[in-house]
């Protein structure tokens, strides 16, 4: 079952100095509950792909489908998480997680209770009445994840959500987020610059070329003894093979740019 489909998508930005082709002829099929990572050089259009799927941008050409229906605007079916948590510092954690619900007009008892449950389930129960400045980076990003999940999206888009964290926190959070998203049966698209992170977390990796972005290579990741744990995945014997392979493909890209 295809959850998200991009068929023949072009995206061209226009500004004063002219046209900037960001994406050319992108075809992608992402299956229900699949975890897919997008890797590629800086500026190749990874964030653009996420914005298109989120319905925040219109493609210049081609079509984007979710559950077989064309995307015409933002929808509660899609949740978007950015590099920084963007928690509002004047709201406590609980009211931060209600933000999306409020905007969507869904901040009723039932939905708010669900958000509270998610906070408790993911270890933030004791911090519901704290302000973001009192939380560590990892906890803040977890709260941001709960804010996304509170809207019960079916597709979750992650744009380098771990890149602002220190290494230790990053590994821990990768593990937690992967577990949470599997538990909640989400379809996930992760944008990252970190090859190891992509291999450890994903079912499939899509490598994009330098701008204008096109799909350059695709890898289905099969690791022995992975058990959906990114941490365990890093110990798998196949891990290094994937790493070397993807590294060399990305390097090629660098060479052609120069």
């Amino acid at each position, binding site marked *: 079952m295809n959850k998200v489909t991009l068929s023949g998508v072009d995206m061209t930005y226009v500004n004063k100095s002219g046209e900037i082709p960001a994406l050319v002829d992108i075809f992608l099929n992402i299956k229900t509950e699949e975890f897919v990572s997008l890797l590629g050089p800086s500026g190749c259009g990874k964030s653009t792909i996420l914005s298109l799927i*989120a319905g*925040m941008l219109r493609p210049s050409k081609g079509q984007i489908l979710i559950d077989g229906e064309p995307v015409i*605007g*933002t*929808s*509660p079916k*899609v*949740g*978007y998480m*950015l*590099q*920084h948590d*963007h928690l*509002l*510092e*004047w*709201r406590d954690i609980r009211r931060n997680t209600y*933000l*999306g619900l*409020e*905007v*969507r007009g869904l901040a009723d008892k039932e939905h708010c209770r669900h958000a509270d449950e998610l906070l408790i389930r993911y270890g933030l129960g004791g911090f519901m009445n704290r*302000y973001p*400045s009192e939380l560590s980076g990892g906890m803040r990003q977890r709260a941001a994840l709960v804010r996304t999940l509170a*809207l019960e999206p079916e597709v979750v888009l992650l744009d380098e959500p771990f890149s602002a964290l220190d290494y230790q926190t990053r590994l821990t959070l990768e593990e937690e987020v992967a577990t949470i998203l599997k538990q909640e049966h989400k379809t996930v698209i992760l944008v990252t610059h970190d090859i190891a992170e992509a291999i450890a977390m994903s079912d499939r990796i899509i490598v994009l070329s330098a701008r204008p972005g096109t799909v350059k290579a695709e890898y289905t990741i099969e690791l022995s003894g992975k058990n959906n744990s990114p941490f365990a995945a890093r110990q798998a014997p196949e891990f290094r093979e994937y790493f070397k392979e993807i590294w060399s493909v990305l390097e090629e890209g660098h060479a052609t740019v120069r």
Partner: protein
Amino acid sequence: MQQSVKKKSHFYSGWLRRGAVSEIHGEYLEQIRKREIMIVTYQVLIGLIFLVFWEIGARMGWIDPFITSQPSKVLETIVSLFNSGKLWIHIWTTVWETAVGFLLGTVGGSLIAILLWWSKWVADILEPYIVILNSVPKVALGPVFIVWLGSGTPAILMMALAISVIVTVMMVFNGFNEVNPDTIKLMHSFGASRQQILAKVVLPATFPTMIAALKVNLGLSLVGTIVGEFLVSKEGLGYLIVYGGQVFNMSLVMASVIILCIVAALLYYSVTFLEKRLIHWK
């Protein structure tokens, strides 16, 4: 302290070391508290020396008290103003004119800033006018306001408003534009309308800037009010100062200036107090 050395918790002892949790902490606390005491002492000392020299200088004839007045006369004047019951009327007049001016300036300026944020189109069109208005010395418009509004309270309020409103527009509008674009992107991903983005993100994020504008405006509106009172009024501290100058009663001028300083400081601290109460998440 010498006595308590034997006690286990000797580092708690001594008023300067109160609250210490260890020997080093106690020493540290003692050090910074001594420093604070010294600073306050010097601050008071400078003021006192100034007053003493002023008084002695006037009495010994080093300076001419007819031009400079002297502390004892100033104090006398304040007491007699107070006893005549007129002091409160003057203070109250200046305070409410300033308060109305700076509240109108802050609220009005913020509303205009919201309009500019709402429509980039309007903002771009008005930009040169705002820059020009900002650089005009508003005091120069005093005569214009008097012709338009008559020589009375409305002209004073207009002066206080004019002097604070444009600064507020610029401060608050800049604050709006400093809101992280990615936070707004996040709101867009929830499908938020412009109004929701304004109410849930932009306004609360800029709230501290608005309070900062309030502080700046307080000073500016006070200038506007005093200048307005110089020009037209029959009441208020500005009027007292001008009147004192006209009849060459320097004690009255100095007394009024000192009262004005105290009023300004009290107004400033009340806004600071408000700020602490309102911005509780930091």
